[in-house]
């Protein structure tokens, strides 16, 4: 089984980079046992970005993988709150504990 993975996302989560981000997220989910996407460097998010978040989480859940997004800036948080989907960031996956546990064992 693959190891859990933390992936940095540095591009804006917007339509301009959506195709690239899809690839990146897809790869990450392929490789990692669970993926933590660090979005602290993401300056903004739009609807295309929201879809990516949803799709990534959905795919992860589908494969019984852990997946979450951490470090969101206030801008990103505010946008998600505006759209009524703040939980995309805050809610842990059902397997979240597994991810944390895995990290501990590995380190």
């Amino acid at each position, binding site marked *: 089984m693959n190891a859990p993975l933390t992936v940095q996302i540095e591009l804006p989560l917007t*339509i*301009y980079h*959506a*195709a690239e*981000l*899809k690839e990146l*997220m*897809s790869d990450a*989910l392929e490789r990692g046992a669970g993926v933590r996407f660090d979005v602290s460097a993401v300056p903004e998010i*739009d*609807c*295309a970005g*929201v*879809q*990516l978040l*949803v*799709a*990534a*989480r*959905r*795919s992860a*859940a*589908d494969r019984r993988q852990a997946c979450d997004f951490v470090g969101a800036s206030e801008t990103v948080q505010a*946008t998600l709150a*505006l*759209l*009524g*989907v*703040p*939980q*995309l960031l805050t*809610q842990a*996956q*059902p397997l979240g504990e597994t991810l944390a546990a895995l990290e501990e064992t590995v380190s």
Partner: protein
Amino acid sequence: MNLDDALQTFIVESRELLALMESGLLSMRESADPSDEINAVFRAAHTIKGSSGLFGIDGIVAFTHVVESVLDRVRDNEIGIDESLISLLLACGDHIGLLVELTAETGNCEDEALIAQAQPLVEALGRYLAAGAQCAAHTRPDSGLHDGGEAAATPHPQRWLISLQCGEPVLRNGMDPLSIIHYLARLGEVTRVATNVEGVPLLDALDPEACYLAFEIELLSDAGRQAVEGAFEFIREDCTLRIEEGGDEPAASPAQPDAEPSIDAALLAPEGAAQAPASLSSSPSEAAVAAAPAAARSGAAARENKSADSHSIRIDADKLDHLIDLVGELITASASTELAARKAQNTELRESAATLNNLIQKVRDSALQLRMVKIGATFNRFRRVVHDVAQELGKRIDLVVEGEDTELDKTVVEKIGDPLTHLVRNSMDHGIEPADVRLARGKPEHGRLTLNAFHDSGSIVIEVSDDGGGLDRDRILAKAVERGLVPHDATLTDDEIYALIFEPGFSTAERVTNLSGRGVGMDVVKRNITALRGSIGIDSRPGIGATISVRLPLTLAIIDGFQVCVGNSIFILPLDAVEECVEFASGGVHDYTDLRGQVLPFIRLRECFELEGPVSARPNIVVVKHAGQRFGLLVDRLLGEAQTVIKPLSKMFGKARGVSGSTILGSGEVALILDIADLMAMAGPAGPAGQISASPALATC
């Protein structure tokens, strides 16, 4: 990704709307009943606000909203129109223009300097709003920029329930529902947003540019249904939209996001989750039906607008230029074909070539017509200039515009803007006297500036006239002597003195105004005009006024020419300038001849240009006319009409006299185009038609 294209369109249209606003504001002053103008200005501001909202350019939305509020009050007659309000609104229009330009350059208009600049404007607008009576809503000056929510409109807040099922192409078409939600927030208060993500597929199946979202939005706003619907204008084609008036209580819609159920539950069990998506999907037909009449209404409105626009089409200037280049090459190729056909002495071929040439001429004429624009648009821009400058100078000056339908080549139009502006400012500053002086002279208090344009023998003439004091001959002469431009004992005619103002470094302004006193103006104007192969002249009457005439070629691209041969060289004359040709019996030392009883001076081109080659036994004189004066050009042979593309001469020939350009003949040879005006000038001051001059300098070149 055509967001950029959409944004480009927004920029272009905003500029046009701002121009409409400006012209509406300027017209208001003169109108007995300005309600049409007021409406037009309001609509322009309103549209700019709406469109910028869709692109999420909040800065423009916020500022324009305040302007719109004031205009709305004006519309309702709660605020009266006066000079200072017009000036304020003009300044606001300028500011919006700055915001639009910044957006064009950088994609948004957040700039501290601009925000600071807007402050006094917003405060001033706020004062109008506060003064303007009954409505409770007003903008607080210090937060005017951010307070978009309180409109000056009359109805009380209404709750709206909006459900928006986005179609797949929404994002790809450059729209983002987020922007719309932001925009709605400016119309009032967005009390709830529910985003339905159930349509989002797994990551691998996701098309990153497709839209899978649906929204339920609750809005509290007094903006009215039209404003709310307007927010969705650009998106509704691709979506299923439904807007309902809610009661005063929050709608009893199944509230899925409020309770924040597990998102994963929602993801994993799409049928479960909330009923909000169900409410959207359960009655698609209802939603569709609701959207349909709305769509039909907006469709009808759109169609009305479109029919007004359908008579014109926007063209990319580069494409037009490319077309003209191709037409030019067609003409050259056609000329070669005709030449070859003539040599081949094949009748069928010749006829065919002639037909081809005929058609190409028609294509040429049509193509050139595309480049012709009416000067009216340029002249109208000056209304603002005159308005502002008059205010600065504290003078009252009216602008009269004539000949607005006169057409000229678009490249010429682009280049005369600056020189004309300088001439206008000069007239206003130095020509038109201050009100008290005018009254003392028995003139009306309001000065009058006239812009006129008309065609004259192949050229376009633009006149800037004022009814001021005319040019001060003595002062100009004195200044010129002081600057060392002329020796102090020179005797000059009035015309020569007036012409001195075009010398570099010349300025008679006693105090340098920031407008036109710096002495860098008139010579630059002349240089610009000369660069366009035009000429500039002054007609001044002391105490009465002055008229500056600018003469320019109608087109810079193609010439209807008349070919002549002198020695070994072929030259082209602009056909418009040619009146007739007469045989010349050579012999005789004088350079003038008898044309039906009138004296016709002529120039011997061979001598003038120091040309070599065979001399014809039967030379001809081509009689040409320029600026009302008639003279002749002595040539060896006449070669007939030819239509060719003008190729400008390189800068190396900037000082060449008597030629204004070159062209490539059908044979591939380069022929020079004669500059009639310059030839006339070269002939010397004794040149004018119909006069015998005793001076042998008549034919000096």
